């Protein structure tokens, strides 16, 4: 057992997989010489050389497609897209090609590709550098999308992503890189499609993922102390496939649910969760499902405006106060 940062967890896992399988290689902008814009890949070029740690030019369409082609021949590329905002340039290769090659060619050619990329805002990076676009990929059959919120989950999910035989969007978050958590030793993997109940409760359920799952857990603990509200927190961890069973069971228990997400509300991740819950747990709902998300504006630069636009603990607390039942269990 050790307490390490999220960044360290990613770094260690990448390194372990590079050692484990010679077909694994990394590719991305500034990951080698610069050691990664967020230092995830520090030291790896030195250890593994430029054949396996490949610095690319600024050509996302080109190098994501290149990674896809290499995967078609059996290599296992792990591509870093500096931030999820740039993934838009590679949409064609991801959605039209990586996601569909195995299916449309009749099952002959798997694409074992991993794309790691951080989303999120809050550092005044302005509209084109602060987005959360994971829902676009969660929408596409043929892709898998995961989003760990802790170092322990980061390790387990990244291993599964790299060792699996399908294209995976592995969502990170800028503000999570420095967060810390306990990780166990050993070569454990976390399967996709399994959410985690990070706090059990009875009064209402908060469903979340990535950084917001971490915020939700903090809020839930505080509100238990201060308001004697017993909130259950579910960390999705996997967006596609989605663990419907866990979220339904939770809402069956508590009867009230909030989805807490950093992306924009309309047509976001929460829309899918809410629709699914009302389909599967209609008779267990005691109130409409709430969605707490970021305000729908291109994120502005000016600090007070940015703060007002981003969702966070404050908005979640408000929603909890509105939704909490009168009677406690």
């Amino acid at each position, binding site marked *: 057992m050790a307490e390490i940062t999220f960044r360290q967890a990613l770094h260690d896992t990448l390194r372990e997989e590079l050692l484990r399988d010679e077909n694994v290689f990394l590719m991305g902008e500034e990951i080698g010489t610069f050691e990664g814009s967020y230092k995830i890949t520090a030291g790896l070029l030195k250890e593994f050389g430029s054949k396996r740690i490949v610095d690319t030019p600024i050509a996302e369409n080109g190098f994501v497609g290149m990674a896809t082609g290499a995967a078609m021949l059996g290599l296992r590329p792990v591509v870093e897209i500096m931030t999820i905002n740039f993934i838009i340039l590679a949409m064609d290769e991801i959605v039209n090609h990586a996601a569909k090659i195995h299916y449309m060619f009749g099952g002959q050619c798997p694409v074992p590709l991993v794309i790691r990329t951080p989303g999120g805002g809050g550092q005044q990076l302005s509209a084109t550098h602060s987005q959360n676009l994971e829902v676009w990929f969660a929408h596409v059959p043929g892709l898998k999308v995961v989003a760990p919120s802790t170092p322990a989950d980061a390790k387990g999910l990244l291993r599964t992503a790299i060792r699996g035989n399908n294209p995976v969007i592995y969502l990170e978050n800028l503000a999570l890189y420095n967060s810390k958590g306990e990780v166990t030793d050993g070569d454990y993997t976390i399967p996709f499609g399994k959410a985690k109940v990070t706090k059990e409760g009875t009064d209402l359920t908060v469903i979340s993922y990535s950084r917001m799952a971490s915020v939700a857990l903090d809020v839930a603990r505080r509100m238990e102390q201060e*308001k*004697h*509200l017993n909130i259950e927190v579910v960390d999705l961890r996997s967006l596609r496939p989605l663990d419907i069973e866990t979220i339904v069971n939770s809402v069956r228990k508590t*009867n009230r649910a909030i989805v807490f997400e950093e992306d924009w509300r309309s047509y976001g991740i929460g829309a899918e969760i809410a629709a699914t819950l009302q389909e599967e747990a*209609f*008779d*267990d*709902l*005691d*109130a*409409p499902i709430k969605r707490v998300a970021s305000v729908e504006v291109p994120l502005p630069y000016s600090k007070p405006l940015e703060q007002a636009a981003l969702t966070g603990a404050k908005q979640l607390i408000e929603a909890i*106060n509105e939704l*909490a*039942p*009168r*009677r*406690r269990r």
Partner: protein
Amino acid sequence: MPEVNMPRLSDTMQEGTITRWLKKPGDTIKKGDIIAEVETDKANMEVEAYDAGTLEQILVNEGDTAPIGQVIAIIGSGAGTQKQPAAPQAAAKNTPTTANGTAKEVATTSQAPSANNQVAATSSRSTEASRPVASTQVQETARPAQREEALSGDGKLRASPLARRMAEEHGVNLHQLQGTGPGGRIVRDDIEDYLDLQRTAPATTAQPESAAASVPSAEVVAPEVQLADVEVISLSSMQKTIARRLTESKQQVPHFYIGNEIDMTDALALRQTLNASTGENGVKVSVNDLIVKACALALEKFPEVNSSWKDSQFVRHKRINIGIAIDIPGGLIVPVLKDANIKGVRSLAREAKALAEKARSGKLTADDLQGGTFSISNLGMMDVTDFIAVINPPEAAIMAVASARKTFVPINDQPVIRDLMHVTISADHRILYGATVARFLHEVKGLLEQPYSLLG
């Protein structure tokens, strides 16, 4: 004999119109020759011959339309050549491009399923201008969900799915509840409050701090300011329910009142007779038991009084279940004597006593409290000359019974002392009218003044 079929020339094409034949019957055709021009939904295209031979027959003339796959010409050895080419018709379209055309396509095109799927899926886009343009329906903007409307006059009940399920499981009548959830809905909490109310007679205190602090609810009045000369007491669940239901009753039910004095002298005497023969373990008959029986029998005669109001309709109850108000610490409760018209006076007495005991010890069940069709509130033992009761919704009426008092009444022009008891019936004017209630009351009076009619 090789057939030339109307070719499928675009992914959306359903039918084509021959605009020009480039060959005529008798002409020699080589494979690859362009033999006709066709107008499709998208463009003017050419028809290519896939076979060689002599064009024998033209089956679809210039200006005519045929669905894809239909034979438009025959290429053969020459033996079957038409002597005269079919007269080209004016540009009148062959088939009206309506549903008929579509049906024909489906019948004649024995193609691979892809063609049929196309027919089905894209039928709305098939060609010609003569097809009436499908009128785009004006999209009505969906009415925003009516929020924040409490249980409203239209009778629609707003309750969460969970609350409905719980209500069904526990046999709770949602109409008896007021919702405190989002939008005024009945939610789980309200069901649980109600069930608590039935279960626990002694006041159960709500949890004040947590309820008040985190959910600013309009129901709970917890004044922040503590004045020196008042003491603020929170309501129990039962008290809350009573307050709510009777307020609702007074606000929504148009009450009217009819009173009368009943001569109870003979009834009291009968009671004494009955109780004289009661053993040690028997149950004594009370005055109220006699009144219950009288009302029950009268309700048999006046079924309209044994009714409720629901969704602008009268609901006549088939059973006669009489609620008897019982005073308990902190409030009152109204358990129900079921089928009071069928049971004898002694049975009623036994049952009433049992219910009173259960009431005082907090053991009444939901079943004990449900199903009432008429109520009696008796303050006779409290030295009350007369009083008026509030209807217990959704019942049509309630009878308020005051004390029996010795009074001088004229009998054969002589003053005689009799025990007179004042009763008032409060009735729902949506269901009942003055004359009916007066007659009903008269019947009750008659039964009590001839008390032996109650026996049996």
